């Protein structure tokens, strides 16, 4: 007979309530981690989705995500002919706010060249863009439906396909269109100064035919270093490897969030430890007489310590399981993506086990101090 389990059964209602309460706390901890992972996934989603070996951007800029970058579209042709380059595609990124269904739709427009790097997407509904004009593919989170017409600036678009889980590093859902369409959209959303500049001097660096970056894929055995060196020789261009690009985004977008969320998670874990500790302590004190009796009839300390630790673990683990279930049920109600990683879950599980053991210390200590003689009194 397992004493811990029998005692839990004896006060099952209270135990379950305690576990549910604890599960809410642990659910929040898991939610925090999942929010952070979601943030990372969203921030890096676009970068990773591009599957670029190199990002060609404006010289001296950490573009196109962390800083504005603007280069002539025909750079793409010049890059393509470099040895080691397998494919290249120009790309335009623009955050837009569009009046939509009486509200404002905030989205991240991605313009890519058909059949070139940057345009590969996994369509979950509908089809990819076939025509070069006036078609778009939208992330489901935009709320757009297949076949729906959408006016962006002065241009009308038709939604021909839907994708899932594509968002900018800021969490805005993606709208994909052809490079040309995106250039037009960008021009309309540019600050007016740029537009005036373009109007006054079409041959300037900020001509209408500019893009934000060029995505480059290299031949499998090309030397990344050599290609970068050659491209950097053009003074107005810079080249970033994909890991560099990820790092820039991680620094600019994620670092603070990581600290913020890490701190908060830490505080919640401390709170959980205190809560579990208090509960275990109270549960132990409620059993004071039973523990004294056990000692009196000759039960070794091991029996008593096991009783307390098993209950602490049972509580922590059921709280963990219920919390994990609750946060997964609730994840669709969160405005931004929650990403649950097995490694995080396992780590938290490990932490919970340690927390339970640590939190039991007070309970165990006071249980061991209980005088067997105290069972004798009334």
């Amino acid at each position: 007979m397992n004493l811990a389990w029998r005692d839990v059964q004896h006060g099952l209602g209270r135990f379950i309530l305690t576990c549910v309460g604890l599960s809410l706390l642990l659910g929040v901890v898991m939610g925090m981690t999942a929010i952070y992972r979601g943030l990372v996934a969203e921030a890096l989603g676009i970068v990773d989705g591009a599957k670029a070996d190199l990002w060609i951007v404006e010289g001296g800029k950490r573009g196109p995500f962390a800083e504005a970058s603007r280069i002539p579209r025909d750079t793409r042709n010049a890059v393509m002919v470099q040895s080691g380059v397998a494919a290249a595609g120009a790309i335009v990124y623009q955050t837009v706010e569009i009046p939509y269904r009486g509200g404002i739709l905030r989205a991240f427009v991605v313009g890519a060249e058909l059949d070139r790097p940057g345009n590969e997407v996994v369509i979950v509904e509908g089809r990819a863009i076939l025509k070069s004009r006036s078609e778009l593919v939208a992330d489901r989170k935009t709320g757009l439906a297949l076949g729906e017409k959408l006016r962006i600036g002065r241009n009308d678009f038709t939604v021909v396909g839907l994708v899932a889980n594509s968002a900018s590093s800021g969490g805005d859902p993606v709208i994909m269109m052809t490079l040309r369409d995106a250039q037009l959209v960008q021009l309309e959303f540019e600050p007016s100064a740029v537009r005036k500049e373009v109007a006054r001097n079409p041959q300037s660096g900020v001509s209408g035919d500019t893009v934000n970056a060029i995505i480059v894929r290299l031949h499998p055995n090309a030397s990344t270093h050599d290609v970068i060196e050659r491209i950097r020789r053009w003074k107005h261009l810079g080249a970033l490897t994909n890991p560099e690009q990820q790092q820039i985004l991680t620094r600019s977008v994620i670092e603070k969030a990581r600290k913020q969320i890490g701190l908060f998670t830490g505080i919640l874990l401390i709170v959980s430890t205190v809560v579990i500790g208090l509960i275990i302590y109270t549960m132990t004190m409620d059993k004071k007489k039973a523990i004294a009796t056990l000692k009196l009839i000759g039960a070794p300390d091991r029996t008593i310590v096991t009783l307390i630790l098993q209950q602490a673990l049972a509580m922590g683990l059921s709280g963990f399981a219920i919390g994990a279930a609750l946060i997964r049920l609730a994840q669709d109600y969160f405005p931004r993506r929650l990403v649950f990683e097995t490694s995080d879950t396992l780590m938290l599980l490990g932490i919970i086990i340690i927390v339970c053991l640590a939190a039991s210390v007070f309970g165990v200590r006071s249980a061991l101090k209980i005088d067997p003689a105290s069972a004798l009194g009334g």
Partner: protein
Amino acid sequence: MEKPARPVVDIARLSKSFGEGPTAVHALVDINLTINTGEVVGLIGPSGSGKSTLLNCIGCITEPDVGEIRLDGREIYHDKWMIDDLRRLRLETIGFIFQFHNLLPFLSAWENVAIVRTLMGEDMEQAKARAMDLLGYLQVDNRANSPPAKLSGGEAQRVAIARALANEPRIILADEPTAALDSERATIVIELMKKVAVEREAAVIVVTHDEKIFSRLDRMVHLRDGRIVDTERPDHA
């Protein structure tokens, strides 16, 4: 029909004080006492006379200051504890019966008895069989699956006695075991203890105020201010 009696509890010049200096309480002063198998001995005396303290010293719950305690032939205390694992000793040689039954509230009646056997290392099935035997012996086997809270005072006390017997103890220590029982039940309980003492060659020490059971005792040891002042054998009418 007398079986050869041998001493199970042997106490010499045992003293115990609580506190120090002028406010010290001399709970036990130079106690000498021998109790044989088959004997039911009552510890009697006014409140504060040291009855519980003596019982707790014999039960290795309270550490005396000086003196000697031999239990079942083993030297347990000689001005200090002579063995390390007192709990193991209790588990193997002593059965306790308390004024309040002190059953574990989260275990059923039979589990409360069986736990003693499992603590001794017996497997569950055998422990349960043993527990059921004992409950039958005490005529409460019909309540074996009830939690203590559902038992009457008398039933709970009998389950507690079954638990005290579960380890087949040489020594049974009972602190006011009949205080919560009516006189009829109290007599049954004390008769039972006598039966156990004889049949199992155990010594029973009972702290009691209960005059109704005095006549059932083999010997009454009177304590006052921590000293044995008188020992009498009630007539067995």
